[in-house]
């Protein structure tokens, strides 16, 4: 009998705890900074073109072959505005196939693809499965409109993948300095300790854009 009384007591005490329900979709929980949605492409605001050059490394490393990428000659390069010789022509990701493994983000040499850490990256109900195949404008949309301000960029240093893109000396020095001071994987919302920059992702992006520009 005592066990039953204890079970009853446990249930009653549980009624005094706060309910855990988050009433989606009127309330949504705050997604952490590193939350992995589905991949999206990033837009380079300095030059007004995507970062992606269409090199197909991500498509090759994708375990489920969900990406199709083609490249073309970059008209901005011919006009002297950009350092990218080739630019992405067409880019299709089949969101229905993507398993969100993050390998495409890891292997990208140009930091052009990133996992969407907003709610739009996970709210993907469609009536027709064909609508889940995302083309280039759909993939660039969130970054272009500025919604994707703080994507999670994990470090792509030499120690990690054994390869780094060719950079000239000032770029290399700047990247060294950045990786020395930057604490890898910091969330901009986390409590910062005194010796760290407050928004390392923005600083890293600024470094990169300053280096490439």
């Amino acid at each position, binding site marked *: *009998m*005592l*066990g*039953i009384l204890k*079970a*009853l007591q*446990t*249930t*009653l005490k*549980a*009624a005094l*705890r*706060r*309910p*855990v*329900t988050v*009433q989606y979709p009127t309330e949504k929980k705050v997604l952490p900074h590193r939350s992995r949605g589905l991949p999206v492409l990033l837009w380079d605001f300095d030059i007004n073109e995507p970062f992606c050059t269409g090199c197909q490394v991500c498509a090759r490393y994708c375990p489920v072959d969900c990406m199709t990428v083609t490249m073309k000659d970059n008209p901005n390069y011919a006009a002297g505005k950009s350092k990218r010789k080739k630019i992405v022509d067409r880019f299709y990701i089949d969101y229905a196939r993507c398993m969100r493994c993050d390998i495409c983000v890891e292997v990208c040499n140009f930091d052009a693809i990133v996992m969407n850490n907003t709610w739009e990256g996970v709210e993907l109900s469609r009536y027709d499965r064909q609508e889940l195949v995302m083309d280039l404008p759909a993939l660039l949309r969130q970054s272009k409109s500025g919604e994707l301000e703080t994507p999670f960029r994990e470090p792509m240093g030499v120690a990690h993948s054994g390869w780094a893109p060719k950079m000239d000396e000032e770029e290399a020095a700047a990247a060294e300095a950045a990786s020395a001071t930057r604490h890898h994987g910091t969330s901009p919302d986390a409590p910062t300790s005194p010796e760290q920059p407050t928004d390392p992702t923005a600083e890293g992006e600024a470094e990169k854009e300053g280096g490439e520009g």
Partner: protein
Amino acid sequence: MFLAFVSDNPWLEAMARLGIIALLVPVGVIMLTWVERKVIGRLQMRLGPMRVGPYGLLQGFADTIKLLTKEDVRPDTADRWTFELAPFVIVVPVIMALVALPFTADLFVSNLTLGLFYIVAVSGLSIVGFVMAGWGSDNKYALLGAVRAAAQLISYEIPLVMAVLAVAMLPQSLNLAEIVTGQEDTPNIAYQSLAFLIFAISGTAELYRPPFDIPVAESEVVGGPTVEYSGIRWSMFQLGEFVSMVIISILGSLIFLGGWQWPWSMFDQSVPVAGQVVTMLAKTSLFIFFFMWVRVSLPRLRIDQMMSFCWQLLLPFAFLQIIINGLVLVYDWPNETLVLLSGAAAAGALYLTYRAARMSGVRYQPGYQQVGSVL
């Protein structure tokens, strides 16, 4: 009272009272489903229904509308009249039992002298409905479930009736209003704790609530007696279950908790109707909360464990309570001895339940070790 304008003609008065019950009962049951979902949700650390209406208040109405508009399916080979009449045979006796229940001193349909006897007799008719549902479904598993349901209902009817009769022995009347007025100083729960325990447990079993819900939860596992029903017929089963829950709760608060007049009668106050209604509501909700609380906390018993619990534990103790009451009445002992005797017997019943549960399920095998604490 408020029905003064029709009080001349007894037929019209009866119709008016019945009409009030007919209106209030469905709405009450619908709100009760909302209450159950909310209470169970809170006990499980979650909100209940929140979307339909403010705080989900209209959830029951939405469910009812959905059930009423569903297609009324009947298996082709089912026995037509048995199948279609079964829900009615379950619901009608239950509502008939409402006729004899006094909600307050004046709010009742008919205050029968044999009120308790009538209620007990009428609520036993539902068993036929379950067997009809199982047989008429032309489904092996429905029949199996129905036979088990009938077995459980018949078995647990006996301790329930014994407990209730034991309580009726004290005021020596079966009239519910007299039983309530007999509890002016102390409610019967103090004198008849064993009967209260047996009443609560048998009541849970009568209602097919967990932990005694294996016949109806067989819908998850095999089939229950209600497996072939849909739409309005299924909603009648639910109606029957919830109205029975209300009846047992009201019965319990009348005969054990002192009805509408305790604790006010201790101070010799006479309470207006509204106060009586509030008191009865409060006591009834205690019972209803108890049923929902137990539902959330205890898993279900196996059918043979349930049967052995009834016949080997509840029934002897129910007889014991009657014998104790009889002794007190015959030898004219003061009522306070009942507190001791009944309390001791209740403690004995609880201890035996504890022992049975701790030792049960252990099948003696060669090499088996003594059960105890495992670590």
